[in-house]
């Protein structure tokens, strides 16, 4: 059996309703039928009448001034619509946080693949050749490509010091700890870039009309981010910008902010052409030009006592943000807050910074900074264990956070989480001790070395600190005259199950059948802004608002139609009809309210960083074949505490999918850079795992509830990304006795290290 399936290990649900019968059950995926029949409509499946096709012409150098743009002969340029920065009616920015990224380069380029101009033509086959016929000459400027080069500041490419953002977190005091320590353990850990590799490439259709303004349809996660960005580019008011999300074929963060850029491009071409324009990237372009996970370097210096207990330490984090700020500050923030892992740090100083290099800007990718710093922490804790002379299990048990303790940002752990018990359970499920013992014996003679590795971690759900208050999310639940109920949110479905879970919640809250609840296609002219579909916030936070809006709807009917508290669905239907006859519509809105007593200091980066943490222990079993130095993950146990399992199948699917991506992050997915440009920008040489490469991923859940989440749920979308990579590298160390402190870790890297240890050609035996 591949997946052991959902197993609830311990249920303690303080805020669950007594008779849940929809939430927590495996109802059919709302849009599942469309997906399995091929009827689901993604942006490239649509053509509007008279639509043109668009193409982006991009920089071929990493940094410099544009000297000249020549439109070559052999092309009838009158057939093409051409847009440059000059055509932008509003501000030439992709509005996000710092607004430093131009929508189209204007005289200067700061990374390879930076968009310079746009072409459109009725025949999509005429675009490549035309793009190739455009000659752009540059005056190159010196460019930088690594964290170290950026830190050196011999070339300052952004701001005054190449630093997009920095944070300082100070808890307690480091005074005297180095002297008190029995051991001072240092380490440096690095992670590489990773491509989100959604199977559907980025795409948008743009339309422009003097009356209606600009409309875009596309593959995206955050309709209102795109909306805000288009308002800026087109200098249009809210009501003249409309963003519609099409079925989206995977996103993982890669479509959090990049769609704003491509939407603006499609809109600009449509404006100039006076016809709708579709831009869909091919894989070559999408991989080379769009955002990736921030590469990182984390340095630890930790003081521990003779028993391996952490007295305190310094953590130094640097992330490579590429050429523009985009989301670097927020990625850095999350990485900073998670850097201490699930451990108690009585004293810690965390310094972090995101720096600029001349590569396409990095962006959001599932985990958003946490996979990077948690990789470091989970490798470092093993390093500490080794120095102190105790086991990976023991070191963690001695340092785990417990209820009543505080995190690195002084957040009090209030819930009843018992990480030692969780760890023991994971070890049991994975047969860790048995296998480790067996492998130690086998490895002496075997050519294929086996090992077991653990990772313990946490993931905060929702926007950090006061982020949710800032988002000020608004959700609607509407009833129609026939008694069907429609959920109105800007939260996007892209495989994770948003549509299903939010409908389950509405159905549960109203106590009406699940199949009577629908969810509106995210269209900014129809749905309110429930915030972006990121940060593992949707089920937990938006879900809670759906619940309260649904309850509000029932209360409205109670008041207007005398609907009794425990109504039947038929009664509900009648009441809806009656109310709509009398009042025209029946819509209930619910707005986010920050829970009272939640304190967060944005200056000192101190306080309650997240409304809830999910907790996890992952265990990996690996083999390394010394003939080929390849690592195979043979078994994987993913055990997590997630508040409440809203939908068993969807939750399993999220974890399994995230684990698979993280296995890729650890062992397969290397971005090969040359002068800031991705060289292996094809699926044939950017390697993600196939069905033949992945082990059975065994998923288990524990539920402790969550007062701040719908039906006790915590966000889980990103959690599974944090643990597998360090668990695997820990397992590799267990198997080979060699520590590796960077990922991706390829067979070539393992070979190199082994060769250094034994200079003769390594041969079997």
């Amino acid at each position, binding site marked *: 059996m591949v997946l052991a399936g959902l197993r609830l290990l311990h249920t303690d649900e303080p805020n669950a309703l007594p008779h849940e019968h929809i939430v927590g059950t495996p109802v059919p995926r709302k849009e599942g039928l469309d997906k399995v029949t091929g009827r689901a409509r993604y942006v490239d499946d649509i053509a509007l009448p008279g639509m043109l096709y668009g193409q982006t012409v991009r920089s071929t150098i990493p940094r410099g001034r544009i000297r000249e743009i020549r439109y070559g002969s052999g092309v009838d340029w009158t057939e093409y619509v051409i847009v440059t920065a000059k055509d932008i009616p509003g501000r030439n920015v992709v509005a996000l946080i710092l607004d430093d990224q131009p929508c189209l380069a204007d005289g200067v380029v700061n990374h390879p693949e930076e968009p310079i101009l746009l072409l459109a033509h009725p025949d*999509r*086959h*005429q675009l*490549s*050749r035309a793009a*190739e016929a455009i000659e752009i000459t540059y005056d190159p400027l010196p460019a930088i490509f690594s964290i170290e080069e950026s830190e050196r500041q011999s070339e300052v490419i952004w701001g005054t010091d190449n630093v997009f953002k920095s944070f300082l977190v100070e808890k307690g005091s480091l005074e005297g700890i180095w002297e008190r320590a029995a051991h001072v353990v240092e380490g440096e850990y690095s992670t590489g870039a990773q491509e989100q590799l959604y199977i559907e490439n980025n795409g948008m259709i743009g339309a422009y009309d003097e009356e209606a303004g600009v409309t875009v349809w596309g593959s995206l996660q955050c309709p209102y981010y795109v909306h805000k960005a288009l308002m800026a580019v087109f200098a249009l008011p809210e009501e003249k910008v409309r963003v519609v999300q099409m079925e989206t074929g995977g996103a993982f963060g890669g479509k959090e902010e990049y769609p704003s850029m491509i939407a603006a491009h499609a809109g600009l071409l449509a404006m100039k052409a006076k016809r709708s324009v579709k831009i869909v990237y*091919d894989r*070559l372009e999408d991989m080379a030009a769009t955002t990736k996970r921030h590469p990182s370097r984390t340095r630890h210096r930790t003081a521990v006592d003779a028993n391996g207990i952490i007295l305190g330490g310094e953590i130094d984090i640097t992330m490579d943000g590429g050429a523009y700020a985009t989301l670097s500050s927020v990625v850095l923030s999350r990485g900073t807050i998670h850097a201490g892992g699930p451990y108690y740090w009585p004293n810690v100083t965390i310094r972090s910074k995101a720096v600029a290099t001349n590569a396409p800007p990095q962006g959001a990718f599932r985990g958003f900074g946490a996979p990077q710093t948690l990789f470091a922490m989970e490798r470092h804790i093993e390093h500490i264990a080794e120095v102190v002379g105790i086991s990976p299990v023991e070191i963690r048990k001695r340092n785990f956070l417990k209820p009543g303790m505080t995190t690195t940002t002084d957040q009090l752990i209030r819930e009843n989480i018992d990480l030692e018990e969780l760890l023991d359970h994971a070890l049991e499920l994975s047969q860790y001790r048995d296998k480790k013992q067996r492998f130690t014996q086998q490895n002496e003679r075997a050519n294929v070395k086996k090992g077991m590795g653990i990772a313990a971690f946490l993931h905060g759900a929702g926007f950090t600190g006061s982020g949710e208050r800032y988002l000020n999310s608004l959700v609607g639940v509407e009833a129609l005259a026939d008694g069907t109920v429609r959920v109105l949110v800007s939260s996007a479905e892209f495989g994770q199950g948003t549509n299903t879970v939010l409908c389950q919640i509405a159905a549960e809250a109203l106590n009406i059948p699940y199949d009577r609840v629908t969810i509106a296609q995210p269209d900014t002219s129809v749905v309110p802004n429930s915030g972006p579909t990121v940060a593992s916030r949707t089920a937990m936070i938006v879900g809670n608002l759906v619940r309260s809006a649904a309850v509000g709807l029932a209360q409205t009917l109670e008041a207007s139609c005398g609907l009794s508290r425990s109504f039947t669905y038929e009664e509900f239907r009648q009441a809806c009809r009656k109310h709509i006859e009398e009042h025209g519509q029946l819509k209930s809105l619910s707005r986010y309210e920050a829970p009272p007593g939640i304190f967060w200091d944005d200056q000192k980066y101190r306080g309650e960083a997240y409304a809830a943490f999910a907790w996890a222990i992952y265990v990996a079993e690996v083999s390394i074949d*010394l*003939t*080929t*130095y*390849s690592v195979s993950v043979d078994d994987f146990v993913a055990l997590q505490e997630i508040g409440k399992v809203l939908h068993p199948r969807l939750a399993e699917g999220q974890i399994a999918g995230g684990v698979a991506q993280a296995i890729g992050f650890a062992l*397969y997915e290397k971005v*090969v850079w040359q002068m800031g440009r991705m*060289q*292996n920008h094809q699926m*044939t*040489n950017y*390697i993600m*795992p*196939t*069905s*033949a*490469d992945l082990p059975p991923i065994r998923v288990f859940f524990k539920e402790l509830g969550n007062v701040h989440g719908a039906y006790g749920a915590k966000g889980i979308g990103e959690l599974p990304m944090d643990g597998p990579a360090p668990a695997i590298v820990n397992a590799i160390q267990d198997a080979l006795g060699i520590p590796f402190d960077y990922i991706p870790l*390829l*067979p*070539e890297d393992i*070979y*190199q290290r082994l*060769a250094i240890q034994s200079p003769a*050609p*390594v*041969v*079997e*035996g």
Partner: protein
Amino acid sequence: MRADPSHYELVAPQNLEAVLALMDREPGAWTPIAGGTDLMVLYAAGKLPACKLVSIWNLPELRQIEVLPEEIRMGAGCTYTDLRTNDIIAREFPLLASAAAWTGGIANQNRGTVGGNIVNASPAADSLPALLVYEASLTLVSARGERKLPYGQFHQAYKRHALQPGELIRTIRLPRRFSGYFSYARKVGARRAQAIAKVCIAALGKVEGGKIVDARIALGSVAPVPLRLGDTEEALLGKNPERELATLAAQTVARQIQPIDDIRSTVRYRTAVAANLVAEFVEALGSQAGRE
């Protein structure tokens, strides 16, 4: 999709004769396309300069597997699936059957052809080392007639081969001499499926009276062309297949190969793994001989 179909011609004559006549009429102008698994990738990337294509897909003359007492004659248009589903090939030419199973996924095996693999001449091609050790010979055909060529002489340099303008590979002939041999094949790629080989090996060995009487070893991805390791083969002949010999054999490998650093792997890795694979072959040969 970066190519413009309006600037590409593709004709599909009904039989081989018509194809060859066309190629003869305009020498060098027409590029044969079989299953398209190589050419269509280049095409979609906008990197196929050859814009006049003649389809040789599914031509009956090229898609037969003829079984004769002394040899198998595989049409160059046989797909990897055709190879995998043929009993004789599975039984008597397991190196080729393995290679076919390792090439791409099922969809690409249904379209990729042996002839295409040979003519595309990628040094990383999966089935070519097997053809070398099985002593394959090719029948080349043009409008002017046929000629035969030992497969070992087909590849002359990186992506340069012995086909003359107007010529196609018609048949790959495999002598049925290797049933009694121990066979060992392994492909090392970045993942277990859909991977281009970083190194691959096809090897045959025969042990009689405790001594190796024949050894044939070929590697892919370690040179501009698929490579027989003649020196290693010679070093093995007449010896006892045991651990020391495996180590010795491994040491002969480095000087015969010329691997490169490329987007997929490194010289050092390829060299080490090639040596390891040879050692593994010799040890496996020894184990098997020991069991008999």
